[in-house]
């Protein structure tokens, strides 16, 4: 191994770059996943009530909604509070509301959040059947688009990572082929004097694993420090973005990269040795 220093460095570098890209994708996909999940969890049902209900009707409706399975929280927003919020949202343009005079066109309402996003549709249908409920809305189009989007992110991310893993095996098997090729004479002599395939294979296997491990280690170091820097920056400026916290997330990522680096190294050297063992 000592006579192939240059090639070993080249291999480690290639492995490091491949695993770095792989790791970056893993982190991005997992974060997108988390963002999608947090968006999904924010989906809520607005339950608008008929105008002339008494307090006991409102309590009855609240009780009925609470009885449904899968309800997370329920908050009552009376029409005055709703108008207040509407004014806040309008900001500088709240003068538009002066046209209304003293009337308040907004209904009393409940805001309902659910335990799982895919409950939203059926629950809102059931709630709209309750007597005294005018309508139950959840921004159907938006939610369904969101579901499509998150599903696509997951599938696409998985696909990209599989392709990258395959490409990494290919790159490593090619770089290890260089080392094997440099020692083909040695391998041929070993075969002629009666060395078993496993005796010939294991040093190369070990070398592949070591290269994969060191490449993975470099990729891990770069990923850890850059993720820390990115999260620090994001927390300062884009506070609403729900990034996955560094710990223990980064430890799992590091472990995954080191293990897959070692495994990919072993796989790569096995593939590249196959041809040279046929003597």
């Amino acid at each position, binding site marked *: 191994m000592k*006579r192939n220093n240059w090639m070993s460095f080249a291999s480690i570098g290639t492995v490091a770059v491949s695993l770095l890209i792989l790791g970056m994708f893993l982190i991005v996909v997992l974060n997108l996943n988390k963002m999608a999940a947090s968006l999904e969890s924010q989906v809520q049902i607005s339950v608008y009530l008929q105008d002339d209900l008494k307090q006991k009707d409102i309590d009855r409706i609240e009780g009925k909604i609470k009885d449904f399975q899968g309800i997370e929280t329920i908050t009552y927003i009376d029409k005055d509070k709703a108008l207040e919020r509407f004014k806040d949202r309008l900001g500088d343009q709240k003068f538009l509301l002066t046209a209304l005079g003293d009337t308040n066109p907004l209904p009393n309402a409940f805001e309902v959040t659910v335990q799982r996003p895919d409950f939203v549709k059926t629950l809102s249908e059931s709630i709209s059947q309750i007597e005294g409920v005018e309508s139950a809305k959840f921004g159907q189009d938006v939610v369904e688009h969101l579901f499509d989007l998150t599903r696509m992110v997951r599938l696409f991310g998985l696909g990209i990572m599989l392709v990258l893993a395959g490409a990494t095996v290919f790159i490593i098997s090619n770089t290890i082929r260089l080392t094997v090729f440099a020692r083909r*004479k*040695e391998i*041929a*002599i*070993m*075969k*002629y*004097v*009666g*060395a*078993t*395939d496993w*005796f*010939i294979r294991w040093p190369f296997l070990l070398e592949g694993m070591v290269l994969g491990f060191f490449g993975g280690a470099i990729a891990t170091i770069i990923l850890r420090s850059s993720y820390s820097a990115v999260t620090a920056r994001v927390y300062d400026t884009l506070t609403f973005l729900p990034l996955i916290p560094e710990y223990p997330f980064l430890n799992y990522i590091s472990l995954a990269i080191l293990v897959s680096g070692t495994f990919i190294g072993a796989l790569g050297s096995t593939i590249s040795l196959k041809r040279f063992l046929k*003597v």
Partner: protein
Amino acid sequence: MIHMHNVSKIYENGAVALQNVDIDIEKGEFVFIVGASGAGKSTFVKMLLREVLPTQGSLVVNGRNVLEMAATEVPYLRRGLGVIFQDYRLLTEKTVYENIAFAMQVIEAPRREMQKCVNNVLDVVGLKDKYKCFPSQLSGGEQQRVAIARAIVNHPQIVIADEPTGNLDPDTSWGIMDIFTRINKAGTTIVMATHDKTIVDTMHKRVVAIEDGRIARDEMEGAYGYED
């Protein structure tokens, strides 16, 4: 030792290398395989090592059936064979001692035997004082002697040599043949493919001539039989 019956080898491109070859070589024999280039000598040698498989026929080497053997048994077949090539095939970055010991290491021979065995074979080939040299510091004849030492260090029953004197001048070649004679006298079977008319004619050993993939002659105490 070697029993070849009705063996043919046809390569995938349709080239016929050997046809219906029958030959028996017994323990302790010294056999020259002669013939023009491309006559099938190399295929014959490679078959003994199971580097190529016969297309048909039966081949038993050292009591092992070469055709029916599993791939995992091949190393054990080869441990009973010492092989020597025209181009020596030494590892240039290892010393003489390391090159020979390498053959013992790769079959995981006991470490304490190694030094004794390597010194013994260095004595046999007359290179005791050059054990620290690298192949590039040796003459062609000396390199071939290292190759012979490596081939015999694991005590094979058969030594297979493919044109071992092909790159050497006549004097040096005789030195090599002298070593083969001594190894043979100690009971090792020797199969040597060669082009060297003088050597074959002088040694009066068994000569098997291969022409166009067939055995044309098989004579005890034979001669080369071709013009150079």
